[in-house]
């Protein structure tokens, strides 16, 4: 077994184990952390395939941004695990059928002639693929790249235009008005004559 094979099996085993852990642990926060670990190991697998850009992006985007958001959401939700596990037996037959169908489909694809390892082109270029992507992204593809940026800008404008609003019925405090308050707005001095002793 070569060193590369050892690395591959090591990270594949960790990926599968963490994926299993993700669906079996009771605590949802632990499940998310297992998912993060699975992504991390998949990123390592990408790097063994000489696709280091995909590996880095997987860590940066999924682990760094998406999963952190996911973790926030999971922590804030009050999930009742017992309720989620109800009906496990009832849905088991359906789940088994779907799983079997997927296994058969995967088998068909992996057995097809286009997906054999021999037909799979190796990355022959000596250029690291981050550099290769960088070379075309701002030259050959500069126009589509910039349009994609404009699409994102429009998405931001649209999101803000549709959600930023003043609701007259919502109760919120305005700190700038709170600190500018004056004494006579808070305290009212009422002059009255002294009352007689109660009997």
């Amino acid at each position: 077994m070569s060193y590369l094979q050892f690395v591959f099996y090591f990270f594949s085993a960790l990926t599968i184990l963490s994926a299993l852990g993700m669906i079996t642990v009771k605590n949802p926060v632990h499940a998310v952390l297992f998912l993060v670990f699975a992504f991390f190991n998949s990123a390592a697998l990408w790097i063994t395939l000489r696709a280091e850009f995909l590996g880095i992006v997987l860590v940066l985007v999924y682990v760094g941004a998406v999963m952190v958001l996911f973790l926030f959401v999971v922590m804030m939700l009050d999930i009742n695990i017992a309720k989620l596990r109800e009906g496990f037996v009832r849905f088991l037959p359906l789940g088994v059928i779907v799983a079997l169908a997927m296994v058969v489909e995967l088998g068909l694809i992996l057995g097809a002639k286009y997906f054999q390892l021999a037909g799979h082109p190796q990355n022959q270029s000596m250029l690291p693929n981050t550099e290769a992507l960088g070379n075309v992204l701002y030259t050959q593809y500069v126009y589509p790249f910039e349009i994609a940026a404009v699409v994102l800008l429009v998405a931001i404008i649209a999101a803000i235009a549709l959600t930023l609003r003043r609701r007259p019925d919502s109760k919120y405090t305005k700190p700038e008005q709170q600190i500018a308050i004056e004494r006579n707005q808070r305290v009212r001095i009422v002059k009255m004559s002294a009352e007689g002793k109660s009997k």
Partner: protein
Amino acid sequence: MALPLAKQFALMVPELFLLGMICAILVIDVFLKNSQRNVTYWLSQFSLLITGILVLTMNPGERITGFDGAFVSDPFSVLLKLFVVGITIAVFVYSRPYMRDRELFRGEYFVLGLAGVLGMMVLISAHSLLTIYLGLELMSLALYAMVAFQRDSGRASEAAMKYFVLGALASGLLLYGMSILYGLTGSLDITRIAINLAHSPHPEVAVGLAVVFIVSGVAFKLGAVPFHMWIPDVYEGAPTSVTLYMGSVTKIAAFAMVIRLLAEALPSAHIHWGGMLELLIVLSLAVGNVIAIAQTSIKRMLAYSTISHVGFVFMGVFAGTDAGYAAATYYVLVYALMSAGAFGMIALLSRKGFEAENIEDFKGLNQRSPWLAFMMLLIMFSMAGIPPTVGFYAKLVVLQAVVQVDQPWLALYAVIMSVIGAFYYLRVVKFMYFDKVEEVVPVRLKLDAGILMSFNGLALLALGMFPSVLMVYCTAAAGGL
């Protein structure tokens, strides 16, 4: 890989200028008080005007591609861009009083509108599958937000939701077709796809599969039957000013996408998409014209009329000849003009607290404002295809193109359907001229909107008298594809 040359950037100066103005307006608008919102309006109109002038002056007069085939400037794109920019100016003029009355007169409306125009220009000049998709999404994203702009209206939110979900579905279909096409040809560039496909070793059925998805995607975006379900609901639910925008200019851009995808990338697959278009045409003409008769809301009626007009546009494309593409281009440009006039009229007749969205609301318009009634008459006649308005000539050239490719029955069918359709257009005319109303509310019209509406209506008449003025450019555009 070499950097794009300055020469290539010179091709897209109008787009660059518009993008710069969008960013500038976005920032300037933040510093304006609500009472100064007119500044945003005039800045938007100014940017559109200059963009139009730049399109004209930067016109290379021939077909040039840039950015490794991602961008193309040809007579077709110049003609369509000029119409998009010009009609958007009219759309903004018509919608200003409407938006102000409904407290929708906000800077974002114009920024999104301009971003939509940018998307359309990108789409019209797209020469690779990548830019077609990005231009389409830029345009659609702006439209989704504009439909949802009236946030307190349940109808508008519902329309926006439907439009968004179905639009995403259509984009998905289109992308699926594009990915198969890429798999078959190994290229995103439209010219190279056409060449590779002509000598393709792949089975015919694989090409057919890609074409099915692409035709479904574009039919969804244009609203041809059976992909038309969203059109009436979205047209009715959206604020009239937005319906006006999406009913007129976006059709031009969507048509450009059809030409780039079907006529330029897939000419060798005409046997596949010809039959599909024929089915779309037959269904669109029938559903559009017959169901429109039953409508009481004029916005819904015009939505169904859109569907039938899309059928006519597809007929020109279906012919698959240069004459057919020229006829379809002519039809879609004229349609955008008519549609801007018709929806603009609804916006102008609405006032604070009142929407002129029922056909009944046009009753006795002749008593209230004879001139506007005459303009509406011209628009309706043109939509119905009655001479001497331009609608007649537009239908004529499309039918001619279809007859030339030996499909006289399709032409005959289209004529019968237009005669059925003439009924509901003429009903509006009857309401305006022959029905009386008890209380005559005079129409208060802004000077700029009045002048532009007169120009819009009279243009339909003038083009009908001298159709070749525009036809020359359409023929040149189709010849340069």
